[in-house]
């Protein structure tokens, strides 16, 4: 083997690294390494002059491999690999030694930090000595997109992608698209009607030639990787043929089963066969099989008898469909934090204590009370209403630690809507503080206080309970006056925390994408990659990624669509060649790696493991599992790991 010619480039990162690590000494000591023929340090290696000096040094010194001691490879591995390519050597002969996140940022003692930076860099040098000049693997892309979740986020993303000419499959778990926005009456900060702005988009989805809508469907399994996913979707039977259904409502009239209507959050009832709401997309009825007496003419069969169009079919079966797509956008939204978790507020058992969405349904013209604000217990107009903010939010000890971000705004909106419906009523808002950042938001809150005379009380409500005369007694404090407050309200509205929906949890599992500590989908980088998941080719949009209002949701959805379009504008994707490789002589075909590979990239052929290089993500799980060291990841071979450990141990 001819001797390696490695160059080492040490970055100061301004003072980020240089303040803690003696970068000069580091650069100097690296020249002691047998393979190192060139070493330099520079204040910002990723700057233009810095990058140029890397390129120049590679050319001038005939370097065949490069180590850059700098920040995390997440940030600049690509930058420097590109530099290597531009200098005429393979990008895969360039490795990063992370001396910032893994060293400078976590240490204070300069001497010790420098020693550690030396070890980290040395181990990268020993590793790169065995790197192969691999060529990227070109993979054709499937120019189709799947959007999971049909709330406003999913709708927006699907429309943006479809309008750019790509085929979209929109998968929604419920019988209609629309998500939570469908349940809202008016929306802050402009108070325009939620349905009025949403329905046109829903109709556009249903008519779009590029959108294939799959409602009442769930994603069950995903294989493949960026550019080429294969998704298994289960479409549940609705027992009604949407093509044939004439929307006459005859079936509903005869159905004997009455269950709470989830669209109205239980404030109204529906039949077993139902349409979620009048403008549902797809416009068709759904037979709720859990409520139905048994899909059986002997037990009931009334709806089928009465349907003149013959649209009802009790024998409809679940359908499993496989879709090939190049990218996936996850927009599975939020749920409200369960009232049952709030013992101090009656755990959902006190009458006339509603959550925010129920209140939206009360205000909505299409809602339970046809747009009249009437309290559920006795259908009287509530004259005193207490709104409580931050319920379940910002309470790390008992509930969610985070701020749900939208509750200040929607509570202000609720107070105003209430005052518009009941001008002689009194609205109280309990708040911790008011967060109204956003265009027109602060003004909106001011108007709630001033024009609509809402009484804002700064403080927490400690307890509430029902009184004998049918009121809800709210016990709280006003921290501004220091006094205890007791209000006998006709109705209480809780601004419950937003939490990731159950469907988000399920989708994350199926897609194998990470979630953050609160369960929201984790973005690849909090600042620079807010719509990318950690898995290439899977993007995030809407409240599934974190609490958000509609404008933010829509922006993120369009951003995700834009990322997808950029990705799929290429004919082929280049797949990292750092994939697993089997040493046949050592493989006994035990299949452990086959079971362990999270990407289903390995199978057994003639008793030996074989890696599908396109599916392999180079995660190394197989290498960690194989007790026989029969499988290795290229450029992270066990030989290299051994060399790195030896270097760190001082060998």
């Amino acid at each position, binding site marked *: *083997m001819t001797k390696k010619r490695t160059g080492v480039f040490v970055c100061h990162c301004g003072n980020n690294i240089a303040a803690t690590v003696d970068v000069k000494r580091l650069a100097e000591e690296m020249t002691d390494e047998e393979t190192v023929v060139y070493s330099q340090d520079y204040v910002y290696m990723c700057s233009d002059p810095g990058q140029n000096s890397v390129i120049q040094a590679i050319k001038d010194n005939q370097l065949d491999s490069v180590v850059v001691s700098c920040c995390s490879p997440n940030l600049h591995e690509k930058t420097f690999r590109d530099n290597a390519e531009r200098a005429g050597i393979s990008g895969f002969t360039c490795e990063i030694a992370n001396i910032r996140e893994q060293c400078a940022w976590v240490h204070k003692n300069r001497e010790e930090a420098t020693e550690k930076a030396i070890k980290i860099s040395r181990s990268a040098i020993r590793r790169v000595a*065995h790197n192969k000049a691999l060529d990227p693997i070109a993979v054709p892309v499937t120019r189709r997109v799947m959007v999971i979740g049909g709330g406003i986020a999913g709708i927006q993303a699907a429309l943006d992608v479809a309008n750019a000419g790509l085929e979209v499959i929109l998968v929604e778990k419920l019988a209609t698209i629309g998500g939570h926005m469908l349940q809202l009456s008016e929306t802050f900060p402009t108070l325009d009607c939620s349905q009025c702005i949403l329905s046109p988009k829903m109709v556009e989805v249903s008519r779009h030639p590029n959108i294939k809508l799959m409602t009442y469907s769930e994603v069950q399994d995903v294989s493949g990787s960026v550019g080429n996913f294969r998704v298994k979707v289960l479409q549940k039977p609705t027992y009604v043929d949407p093509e044939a259904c004439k929307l006459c409502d005859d079936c509903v009239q005869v159905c004997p089963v009455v269950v709470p209507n989830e669209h109205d959050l239980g404030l109204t009832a529906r039949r077993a066969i139902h349409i979620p709401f009048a403008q549902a997309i797809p416009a068709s009825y759904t037979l709720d099989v859990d409520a139905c007496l048994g899909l059986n003419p002997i037990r009931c069969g009334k709806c089928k008898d009465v349907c003149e169009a013959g649209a009802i079919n009790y024998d409809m079966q679940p359908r499993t469909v496989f879709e090939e797509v190049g990218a996936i956008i996850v927009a599975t939204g939020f749920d409200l934090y369960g009232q049952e978790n709030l013992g101090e507020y009656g755990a959902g058992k006190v009458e006339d204590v509603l959550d925010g969405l129920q209140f939206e349904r009360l205000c909505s013209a299409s809602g339970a009370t046809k747009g009249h604000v009437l309290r559920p217990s006795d259908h009287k107009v509530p004259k005193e209403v207490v709104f409580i903010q931050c319920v379940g939010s910002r309470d790390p000890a008992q509930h969610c630690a985070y701020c749900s971000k939208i509750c200040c705004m929607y509570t202000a909106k609720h107070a105003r809507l209430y005052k518009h419906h009941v001008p002689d009523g009194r609205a109280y808002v309990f708040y911790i503080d008011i967060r109204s950042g956003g265009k027109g938001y602060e003004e909106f809150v001011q108007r709630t206080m001033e024009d609509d005379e809402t009484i804002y009380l700064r403080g927490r409500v400690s307890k509430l309970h029902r009184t004998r005369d049918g009121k809800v007694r709210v016990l709280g404090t006003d921290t501004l006056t220091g006094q205890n407050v007791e209000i006998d309200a006709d109705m209480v509205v809780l601004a419950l925390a937003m939490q990731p929906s159950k469907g988000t949890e399920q989708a994350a*599992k199926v897609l194998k994408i990470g979630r953050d500590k609160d369960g929201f989908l984790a973005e690849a980088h909090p600042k620079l990659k807010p719509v990318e998941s950690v898995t290439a080719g899977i993007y995030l949009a809407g409240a599934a990624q974190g609490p958000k209002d509609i404008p933010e949701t829509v922006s993120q959805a369009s951003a995700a669509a834009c990322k997808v379009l950029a990705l799929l504008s290429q004919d082929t994707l280049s797949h990292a060649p750092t994939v697993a490789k089997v040493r046949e*002589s*050592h493989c*006994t*075909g*035990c*299949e*452990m*790696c*086959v*079971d*362990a590979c999270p990407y289903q990239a390995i199978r*057994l052929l003639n*008793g030996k493991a074989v890696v599908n290089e396109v599916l392999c993500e180079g995660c190394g799980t197989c290498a960690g*599992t194989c*007790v*026989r*060291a029969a499988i290795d990841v290229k450029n992270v071979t*066990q*030989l290299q790991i*051994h060399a790195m450990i030896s270097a760190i141990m001082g060998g």
Partner: protein
Amino acid sequence: MVKVEDIQQCAAGLLEKGQVKSVLGFRRGTAGAMAEPCTITEAAEAGTLVWDPTCLNNLALYLVKDRKQQAASKTPDIRPIGIVAKGCDSRAVAVLLQENYFKREEVFVIGVSCEGTGVIDPKKVATLLKGRSPSRVEFDGADGFKLTLRGGEMQVPAREILADRCLECRAASPALNDVVFGEPSGERGYATPFHAAKEALGASETERWAAWEHHFDRCLRCFACRSVCPMCYCPECVVDSTSFVIEPQTSAEEKANRIKWCERSPNTSESAVYHLTRAIHLAGRCVDCGECERVCPVNIPLRLLNTMLEMEAFEMFHYQAGHDLSQASLLSSFRDEDPNSFIR
């Protein structure tokens, strides 16, 4: 009680009908009471097979050996093999099957239940008899052994001389079998599962490390433990540089780049790497046949290392090596409900 004639007849039948090319079993040893493993290939030899509490070996090892032989042979003979299997032997066969080492139809398991007892620990017998050795050891009733000595016979309760692993055994009758002799064994009540491992955990970390340092220090790296283990069938042992596989196509670079995760020299740290790696590579695979500990010439309590991991596998993942063929191996399977409290 198992009748040895049943085993003999079964073996003879299999060989006669040509259902198997050979039967792995036990015969009378040449010295003392101990039985020894044997391979018989003719029905006429079946009469030499024995079954008594000295049938210590895990015969699954010889299935592995045969497989290696056939793989190296120009004219491989892969006709099925019959194997006389105790509970632990059959679990070993199950793990090997789970790992595709051979196919189910390539092995005929003549299961033998240890019923209420198991096999003896020769060291315990030696202690009991103060160095004298019995000429015969036989099963005696539901939970005892009969020892024949020069001066006469002696009845010993099983718990006094049973091998440690048998005391802790939870599946003394072979679940995987094609035919089984003897009664299925229920709760035997000698020792709670993982008794020894749990007891060892009572010591402090420092004490435990001191003890193991002492053991590793004594290790000769003779590799007897590895040689006797049916699970240690890898073509090359990652922690033994002398076992490197060299093939005609192995390049000079590959040879030069072979990794020595541990050095050949038997010093404490290198032996620790060897034993701990072996233990981890056996996690979810060790069937607790106790062979490694039995053959160790310097008495390193290897069962402790292995059963400790099996205990974790059982307590955390409800996994028992060799209990369910259809299950994916412990190390390669992940379920959402797996506990992960140890990941911080």
